[in-house]
């Protein structure tokens, strides 16, 4: 489903690569956490999977596409099979909840009939059927993130990418959002989620990929045990720097 092979990405003007020889394989239906300090390369990795960026070297295969070879005009069609949510929700402030979700279908040319059934369905699923005609500014942060999730999954994507989706939310709301993402995953969507929140990672008992300084330092399923050990190396990057030198 997602295969990343020895990928290096260096941004122009940066003195150290954002990703340095990263290899990772994610299967259909997996739920994977990407954890690591700021600047560890989580967001860079997500950008590569979404084909927002192209690596300097290495291979990125997502949904059967080699993302270094895919021609520019096919990128939009590739992205239709992906859903994405962010820490800052990225809703359109002048559109209602329903319009925000409908917008993402309108611009990929879905029929009015499809939109009229799909939007209420997905809003019902995220528990916001009763707020379809509210503006984002009238919603709480958790509700706004549910709208963003509804928008991300309304087109039934194969993969959901979530970049710190609970970063702006309080613990109770975080719990709701995580339950929702788990349900989405249970329905068959592969989920890749970047997070800082160790509490979530501990509770969810899913596969955890730990990044530090652009390298994968751990990739294990029994997260709770390993994270405790890896967290120290995340917190103390000096060890890695010494290794590099």
């Amino acid at each position: 489903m997602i295969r990343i092979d020895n990928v290096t990405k260096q941004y122009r003007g940066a003195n150290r690569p954002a990703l340095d020889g990263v290899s990772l394989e994610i299967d259909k239906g997996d739920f994977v956490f990407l954890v690591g300090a700021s600047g560890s390369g989580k967001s860079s990795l997500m950008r590569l999977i979404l084909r927002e960026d192209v690596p300097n070297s290495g291979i990125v295969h997502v949904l059967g596409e080699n993302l270094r070879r895919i021609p520019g005009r096919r990128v939009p069609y590739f992205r239709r099979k992906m859903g994405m949510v962010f820490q800052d929700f990225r809703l359109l402030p002048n559109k209602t909840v329903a319009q925000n979700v409908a917008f993402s279908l309108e611009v990929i040319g879905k029929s009015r009939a499809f939109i009229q059934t799909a939007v209420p369905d997905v809003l019902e699923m995220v528990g916001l059927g009763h707020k379809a005609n509210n503006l984002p500014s009238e919603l709480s942060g958790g509700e706004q993130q549910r709208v963003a999730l509804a928008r991300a999954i309304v087109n039934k994507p194969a993969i959901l990418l979530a970049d710190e989706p609970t970063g702006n939310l309080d613990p109770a709301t975080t719990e709701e959002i995580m339950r929702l993402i788990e349900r989405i995953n249970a329905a068959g969507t592969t989920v890749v989620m970047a997070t800082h929140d160790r509490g979530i990672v501990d509770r969810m008992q899913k596969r955890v990929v730990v990044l530090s300084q652009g390298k994968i330092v751990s990739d294990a399923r029994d997260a709770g045990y390993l994270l405790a050990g890896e967290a120290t190396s995340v917190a103390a990057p000096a060890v890695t720097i010494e290794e590099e030198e």
Partner: protein
Amino acid sequence: MRLGYALGEVGHGLRRNVSMVISIVLVTLVSLTFVGTALLLQFQITQMKNYWYDRAQVAIYLCTDSSPSAACPQGEASADVKTTVEQRLDSQLIKPYVQRYYFENHQKAYQNFEQEFKGESIAQYVQPNQLNETFWVKLKDPNQSAIITQSFNGVAGVEEVRDQRSYLDQIFSILNAASLAAIGVAVLMLLSAALLISTTIRLSALSRRRELSIMRLVGASNFTIQLPFILEGVVAATIGSVLASGVVFGIVHFFVQGYLAQVLPFTSFVGVGKALVVAPILVGIGVILSALASGVAIRRYLRI
């Protein structure tokens, strides 16, 4: 791609940028009016050339007593000179090029002169024998006037050989220069129109960058993303070019036909039909230019 969506976005964009849209409309209006005027001038020149070149003749002016002595040392041309000129015009060498010719004596020249300057004081001072006797030669092909000029220049008793087209060419070159100047101004204006369109489109894209980033995220095709912006530029420029067509039509109808044609009744002027030829050209230029300008602008702003 739903058309309703694209048109809705265009309307939205146009309303959001009203002042910029008005400036696009005005700049295209003015620049295309210049283009239209230049085209009309070219049509006018062609029309006048067709009209006047058909009537233009070569004049062989014979010497008079008052001719300058350099060209005419022996004064008034004798009857022999007229016979010589006549014979030569009828000779096998020249006859094939000549459609017809006629001789205008002092008396006839004076009558024509009087008619031409009727009511002006100069008519009172001119005597018939001061006006040249003239052979008026109409050529089969007006471009071959050099044959007559060369055969008769320097012949004793001939003061000057003159192709009337040389007078006309001066007028035409002035008109031509005017139309080139109009084209030059138009090109500059069109350039600024194109830059203005691309700036406006970029501004419009900037004000919609949230929508654009979401569109790219959910996989809207480049065509879907770009079309509303391109249409926005095209709509504004089309309004400008239609207005410019209206102005060109007005120039022809009210100024050329309504004023010039009344003041100069013997000149053939371009008609409204020509304005109808110019209008689609202007709209075409407006549409193509704006589509290119906004297309390039939005493509450079939005990379995948």
